């Protein structure tokens, strides 16, 4: 066996399992709390306020916000899962073991990003199930629904991984999600159709990558979208490629890992 060619699958599995075990250990934080907060969104926006809002694109408001809410949790959880997973060993110093192990960068990324993405996909599906208790749901394109779910989870887990490596403190770890991701998701058409915005703001919104994720994901449910689904998919893939490129650069240079 050529040791250079073979993948260290034992390592991928070992890391993945530890990440899953962490999720189970912190089930309250990683599953229950997002489900509760999403349920609150449904109660407030879906029922209380939503009942006063007319349908959007022929979809009841409660149902309209479901894809956006799932995306919201998917984005924030993917980032926080992955950033924490790689930041924590850096913080306590146990990263030495990962760096001294016969593990390739690809394997490290597959294991950590795979673990983070799995958790947020499971969470997305749980929120979907929770939502179906509040509003009647239809999923017109289940394959694309899953594809968007997986693509987004992987992309933003990669993004979280980058943040986790970049961060030098817990404050920095929270900074990007708080200052960038939360505003982007709230302004990304989760709670409204961007067609409802005045002209100039509609154009500004098109620079927000989250718009494409939410729009494409909503299309997979109801067949209606703010921007064409091809563009949505394209933008998501572009963002994925950008993240992959940054991760590749980090590993090539040892940025904040091996210096």
């Amino acid at each position, binding site marked *: 066996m050529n040791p250079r060619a073979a993948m260290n699958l*034992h390592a991928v599995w070992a890391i993945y399992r530890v990440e899953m075990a962490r999720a189970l250990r912190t089930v309250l934080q990683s599953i229950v709390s997002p489900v509760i907060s999403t349920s609150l969104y449904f109660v407030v926006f879906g029922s209380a306020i939503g009942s006063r809002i007319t349908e959007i694109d022929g979809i009841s408001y409660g149902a309209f916000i479901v894809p956006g809410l799932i995306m919201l949790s998917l984005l924030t959880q993917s980032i926080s899962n992955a950033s924490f997973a790689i930041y924590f060993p850096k913080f306590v110093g146990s990263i030495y073991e990962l760096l001294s192990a016969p593990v390739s960068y690809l394997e490290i990324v597959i294991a950590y990003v795979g673990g983070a993405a799995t958790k947020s996909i499971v969470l997305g599906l749980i929120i979907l199930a929770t939502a179906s208790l509040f509003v009647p749901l239809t999923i017109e394109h289940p394959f694309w629904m899953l594809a968007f779910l997986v693509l987004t989870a992987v992309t933003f887990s990669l993004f979280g991984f980058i943040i986790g490596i970049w961060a030098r403190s817990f404050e920095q770890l929270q900074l990007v999600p708080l200052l960038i991701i939360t505003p982007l998701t709230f302004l990304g058409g989760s709670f409204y159709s961007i067609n409802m915005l005045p002209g100039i703001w509609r154009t500004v919104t098109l620079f927000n990558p989250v718009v494409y994720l939410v729009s494409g994901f909503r299309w997979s449910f109801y067949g209606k979208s703010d921007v064409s689904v091809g563009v949505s998919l394209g933008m998501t893939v572009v963002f994925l490629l950008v993240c992959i490129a940054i991760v590749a650069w980090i590993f090539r240079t040892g940025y904040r890992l091996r210096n």
Partner: protein
Amino acid sequence: MQPIISISGVTKTYATGFKALKEINLDIVRGEIFALLGPNGAGKTTLISIVCGIVNRSSGTVTVDGHDINRDYRAARGLIGLVPQELTIDAFESVWATVNYSRGLFGKPADKAFVEKVLRDLSLWDKKDAKAITLSGGMKRRLMIAKALSHEPRILFLDEPTAGVDVELRQDMWAMVRRLREDGVTIILTTHYIEEAEAMADRVGVINRGEIVLVEDKAELMRKLGRKRLVLELRSPLATVPDAFSHYALELSPDGGQLTYTYDNQSERPGVASLIRELEAAGIQFRDIDTENSSLEEIFVNLVRKQA
């Protein structure tokens, strides 16, 4: 025989401009216990971190059992177990989980019997379900060793293994090191407890300010650089050392009751036997004789001081 680790021309300059290592050349012999001595900040941990792949070097090459640590990093790293200085463990993992994790990380298939043996050897078996955070400092140190041994390494790095460790653990640890060596594992340890190096090592390297000052067989080092001291308890005190003995440079204690002769194996001074013969001939009688070897510590301190 091909060295198991070959370090040549390795330098490390940190982003701050600090030169942690200047041109390190060092070969580690297969199966030996090598002690790397040096004061704090000498570059011991940086050197180990480079060999283990934790820190990128600025220049030079390192091979482990013939494998370049960059081109063939899998083969190279797979051979090495590292016990770092700091107790850095995921605090919320159980002992069992974290040791199995380490084994997997190094590409070894699960082997419960082997992991059990490692834990038993380190008196950790009773604690296998305990979370790392609940362990005492000594137990955590054992756990770090268990993690390093979990993948059956052929080379073991122990970075300051006994800093802040109690006597019992220290003895267990040395017993373990000896067992590993019998199994053919090469051991490299850093320490500033020199008595440890003296007791354990086959060879000693001294590093200071990022440079290897000396690498020597321990016994040879003690022989070459070790000073010996002969202390004679006199029957009756002397007022002064007789002139006939001036070439011995003897020291007389203030009370005149003790003569001390310091010599080393390379010295020009005549041997102990002739001194004793001459003392007897001069009618100076003594009650007792004592000899002392200088320790590795003195050798080390002298070396480092000389360089400063």
